[in-house]
């Protein structure tokens, strides 16, 4: 059983796209997979054509037990289930804060599911708050999409510093390049600098490609609607590298 988090302090870095496509590839490989949409923007939920829960009454993530089991939806793909986003996930950090052991809430909630699934993938909202700290505790590995820009690199440094300060295990963090534009000189240069500066930087980049944006139109993972496209291949390469370097490490 492995729990992987797709996490970034910044928004709009290709986090949800990666979570959805990696979850699809994992399930296709035969692993029983659950993708948890923790982001109230509910993009992952949308991609799988599931309606997010807009009702005010929180169920799944707040009260552990039966509720979460009932919230889970099967997707269009074998082996792949989804825990849909709920609108009040926007308050999760505040709700956890009021509870005991507030940084381990997510761990407690996901525990029964960890027995049922081979892989759990968390699609996290862009934030560094109590919910994020819950993610840092529950995830075995944290995958951080990194756009090769100066600001992104700076943010990554901030994340690592936060980990060190709060005594989280920085070895959990793996970065991979996202939305890479090979035509931009800066992207190419920064990519090599990042690899030099940080440990655990994966070498399979996700390029900036229109097929990835088309996921919103198709409402399907890229490898499902365009299996031989460059975008699909880049996620497959990333997945292979994660299996080889992260999961077997």
């Amino acid at each position, binding site marked *: 059983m492995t729990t992987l988090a797709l996490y970034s302090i910044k928004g709009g870095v290709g986090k949800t796209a990666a979570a959805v496509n990696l979850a699809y590839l994992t399930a296709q490989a*035969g692993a029983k997979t659950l993708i948890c949409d923790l982001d109230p923007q509910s993009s992952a939920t949308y991609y*799988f*054509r*599931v*309606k997010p829960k807009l009702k005010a009454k929180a169920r799944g993530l707040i009260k552990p037990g*039966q509720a979460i*089991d*009932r*919230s*889970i*939806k*099967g*997707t*269009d793909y074998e082996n792949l*289930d989804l825990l849909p986003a709920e609108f009040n996930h926007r308050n999760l950090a505040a709700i956890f804060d009021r509870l005991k052991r507030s940084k381990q809430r997510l761990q407690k909630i996901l525990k029964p599911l960890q027995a049922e699934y081979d892989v759990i993938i968390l699609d996290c909202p862009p934030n560094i708050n109590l919910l994020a700290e819950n993610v840092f505790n529950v995830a075995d590995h944290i995958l951080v999409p990194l756009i090769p820009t100066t600001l992104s690199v700076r943010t990554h440094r901030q994340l690592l510093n936060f980990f060190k300060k709060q005594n989280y295990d920085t070895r959990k963090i793996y970065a991979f390049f996202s939305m890479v534009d090979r035509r931009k000189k800066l992207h190419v240069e920064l990519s090599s600098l990042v690899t030099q500066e940080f440990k655990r930087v994966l070498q399979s980049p996700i390029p900036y490609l229109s097929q990835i944006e088309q996921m919103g139109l198709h*409402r399907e993972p890229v490898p499902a609607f365009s299996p031989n496209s460059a975008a699909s291949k880049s996620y497959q390469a990333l997945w292979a590298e994660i299996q080889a370097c992260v999961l077997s490490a």
Partner: protein
Amino acid sequence: MKDSMIYENLKFRLPDHYDQQQMITNLDEQFPIKPEPPQAVRLAFYDTFDWRLYNNALVLYHSEHGLFLRPLSDVTVLQQARITTPPVFVRDLPDGAMKDKLSAIIEMRALLKLAHVYCYTTTYRVLNQDEKTVVRLACEEYRPSDEQSAPVLAVYLVLKPVRGYDKNAHQIADHLKELELAITSEDPMQAILKNSGKTPGDYSGKLNIALSPDMRADEATKKILCFLLDIMKRNEPFIKGDVDTEFLHDFRVAVRRTRTALSQIKGVFPAEISTHFKEAFRTLGKLSNDLRDLDVYLLNEESYKALLPADMRDTIDPLFEYLQEKRDAALQHVINSLESRDYTRLIRDWTAFLQAPAGDSPAASGARRPIINVAQRRIDRVYRRIVTAGYRILENSDDELLHALRIECKKLRYLLEFFTSLFPEKKINALIKQLKQLQDNLGDFNDFDVQIEYLRKIAEELPLTGPRSRKTLLAIGRVIEKFENEKQAVKVAFVDVFTGFAAPANQAAFKQLFKPKKKEGAR
């Protein structure tokens, strides 16, 4: 925690020549449906010769996607392993849940291919307004080959609910029921095996002989012996193929039971016939003694090693290498004797004798007696002999006496198993269970004793040179020491086990079933 139906598939049997295309078209008018590209997959089914998986309600099959284990009559895969070549033994499986589960069931037995089949599946996805899949309907068609003309062995429509969309699943299920399609729990494997002439569960090492109390004793005995001959004949080709160790084991047990039947069911055949075949089967049994011993040592390699401290474990390897070499020779010896003229003649003569109609021979006085009387008298006598011998051992626990008692117990066990069908099932099974405890104790004692003896002998003939050999001998010595301790412990335990076996309640139970009733007015 789980609702009644959420995760369960519903399987409907489609009648022969059913127009499923039309049915889907009709369904599409009410529920939007999207078909997926049809898929064809070749499945090969596996089980052990004695149907261990089938007896545990499990189905193991291999396809290009890997190896799958599922419950009988259910499509939900319990475990899967991504291996391209199907395994023969448990040790060929990758470590994981499937290996753990199967090793307890299959143990040392080989997996044999039962049959293969081509499964053609078309999956129809039922969609909601968001074009989200809410139910899957899979049409599965099984054919014995991939030729167009191949007959259809079975067709099913499987309703696979999608988690979280129970209402839709209920809706579709109701619709299918209205079409009067019947829900079935039959397993396609049954039809596939039937097609290839196989009957699940048709072999077991256990005896299952239906006798009636007033059958002539010679006929009943022949029926028992025929059953045993059949076991020998069925195992024999697999011994020659060296498929796994248990074919020889079952063969040998059948030979031993044959000898016991010939010697213990007295007076039913002419003496010279009984003597001749008893002797012939004794020789046959002896031919494979070495091979069986070696099989047992080699099967127990891991447990031998477990007796040694971790850093000593490898040092005993030369012993097992040597035993393996010896086994190759012993196997050849057994194969040669099974291919010999003597063996062919024995089986031919024996078959002829068993098939000949029962005649009246003055040399066999008991031939016409009802089998129930013969059975009762013999079981009663052997039982009483065991009780007497056991009490003697409580006073003097000589090793030889324990060996003799073990052999007597084996005879009693075989007799009880030959004649099980003549007595109330519950009662006789309870007695067999009681006896088994005593046999286990005596068997353990014998195993340790024999192994100690064998290891001492083999240590002398091991071709050892150099400093490694000292370590090997040291390891063997260590194992012998452990066995000596175990042997003494088993001997101590005998007192309690035997006292339980000879307890008044148990004696009374034996008496009630087997003590010949005195004829009324015969004083």
